[in-house]
């Protein structure tokens, strides 16, 4: 399970960096989530941030659940996102999804049981000129052939796929 003391120290540093004000909640939360292996905000950490900023935990929870980048539940160590909006569907993202599911060994909308990778649909991230497009750990890739797809998966997630 998670050990939080070390994490709290680092979160404290993030809060100091941005300033102990409510207005900085969003960058504090996004930077904090980047520290957590499984890309989420544990409840204890949300509580800690709420106390540090003197705001109610319910409102920190509101922010966590509002923004798509933030998660209240653990996800994979690596996040693979496939655009499912208008342009990428027109450009037949279904075959891309199939290829990803096969390569990663997880069906879209799920986290692989070993916790290494989450594969999910995501709305348009402005890569329509290289559609259909994906993001792997925030890096954008498009105009993918089967070969290129395998390569970018290997480069980012490293051989740990089915």
């Amino acid at each position: 399970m998670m050990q939080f003391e070390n994490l709290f120290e680092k979160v404290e540093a993030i809060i100091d960096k941005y300033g102990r004000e409510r207005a900085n909640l969003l960058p504090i939360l996004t930077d904090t989530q980047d520290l957590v292996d499984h890309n989420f905000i544990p409840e204890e950490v949300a509580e800690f941030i709420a106390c540090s900023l003197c705001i109610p935990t319910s409102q920190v929870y509101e922010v966590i659940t509002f923004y798509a980048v933030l998660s209240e539940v653990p996800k994979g160590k690596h996040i693979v996102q496939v655009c499912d909006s208008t342009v990428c569907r027109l450009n037949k993202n279904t075959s891309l999804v199939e290829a990803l599911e096969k390569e990663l060994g997880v069906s879209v909308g799920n986290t692989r049981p070993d916790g290494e990778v989450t594969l999910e649909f995501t709305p348009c991230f402005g890569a329509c000129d290289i559609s259909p497009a994906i993001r792997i750990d925030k890096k954008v890739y498009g105009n993918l052939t089967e070969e290129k797809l395998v390569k970018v998966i290997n480069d980012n997630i490293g051989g740990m796929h089915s």
Partner: protein
Amino acid sequence: MKECNVIIDNKEITIDSGMTILEAAKVANINIPTLCYHPVQEVKANCRICLVQTGKDKLVTACSTPVWDGMNVKTNSRLVRDTQKGVLELILANHDQDCLRCVRNGKCELQDLCEMFNISRSDIEDVTLGDVTVDSQAMDVSNPSIVRDYSKCVKCNRCVETCTKVQDASVLAASHRSTDYTIQPAFGKTLDHTLCTYCGQCINVCPVGAIYEKDYIDQVWDALDDPDMHVIVQIAPAVRVALGEEFGMEAGTNVTGKLVAALRRIGFDRVFDTNFTADLTIIEEGYELLGRVKNSGTLPMVTSCSPGWINYMEGFYPDLIDNMSTCKSPQQMFGSLSKTYYSDKAEIHPSKIYTVSIMPCTAKKFEAQRPEMNSYGAIDVNAVLTTRELARMIKMSGVDFTSISEEQYDDPFGITTGAAVIFGATGGVMEAALRTVYEVVTGEELEALDFHEVRGLDGIKSADIDLGGTVVKVAVANGLANARKLMEEIRLGKSEYTFIEIMACPGGCIGGGGQPISRDPDIRAKRIKGIYGIDRHKVLRKSHENPAVKKLYDEFLGQPNGHKSHELLHTHYTPRPGSRIKTMQFE
């Protein structure tokens, strides 16, 4: 203020330019339908019911749009009516339709809109294919006081505002987006895992049956039906000036006599007055205060009869527990006496006595179940009914409340003073205490019994009281956001007060979470007027003059703050799990 000429539904009116269309329409005698709007809250404009037409193809919400000079508004054009009805149908499409079984049947703002818009079954079917399955999480029945039914929530956010701005607990907030949008505590917890104070103010503003009190009527009927049980009932002061509203009477009407009669018809063996133990509380608390002053005890001392306030203190100011009076609330003092003193007098074993209390308060249900509240090894107050539950019970029993003849309370807990009844209003406990403390300290009779400086609806009131030469600073707060201000001063070591009264609910108990629900902004003022009216007409108006209380000390308790008192009438407090020490951010 500048003036504006506006045409509303073909009527020309001239009004202040700062008004919203909603307010302006009232001037023209037009009531635009609303749902999320509440007269004492901020405008939210999220339900989108109050639409009006201000131009070709242009609809705006009347609650949030200010008028402009030359505006031509239609509140009932075709486009408005069709769109409003459509919005209502969309709400209904994701709202539990089991009105017949809902606690707000007949008292629901959504039902009012359906009636107003002439909604029929076929309209809804257009949208939802007939059967409505509401997408929401499981009901929260986790705690003794409040039930949350997510399937009925219309997401108006009224409860969020009350919980956050007025009551400062901030347990509720909106979370998630789109169809997952939910008003709930952090991490979807049930209320028992939060710092909810159970004050029930959220219930008082909910337009529908999404939040309501936990109902104990069946348990009480069971006890009444049990021939072996001796069922007694105590009634709080604030109930008697509000219960009448549930039967069409004016707010503030004193229905004490009818209330007692109705309870006898229902079958209670004895009907008692919580005011008795309110008088008792004043004695105990008055001496406790004087003890602290004399012996350099922790000051300021803060009153402890409001369980919503106690919950708040244990949750957010547990470091200041020592400032709390150790006196139990009148409800709980009554409870312990009912199983000891009364048990002896009536010669009935306490296990055969079922004590019910009628309270304006939802937190009292939680208070009654606190583990400390048992004087003989089992629970002192067996069941708590809110004013609203009592009204339902009276209706269930067929009593014609408005016509019934008045009756009197039973002895030995029927003699009470005016000082006791004013407990129901904010400032009442303070005033009652001052009436006694003044005479104890000065040894002189107090002529002017009305302490006006501590009366009224201001959030924080303070006064300098001259006790025969010694000036004592006192303060009164109602509503927890106001309580916080006084507690912050104590925490920072800056409080100038000796004695502080805090009531969780705005207006004091008359505005409690268990009272009849009303959107009348003057409802509290009307009830308070009723309370002080009763006090004025009382023969006895000082707690220490209550002969039955004196008898209680002579026969049973001994001295105020004595050993027996401490055993039965005093309590202790504990920080709540997950308690937070908040430090105020000064804006």
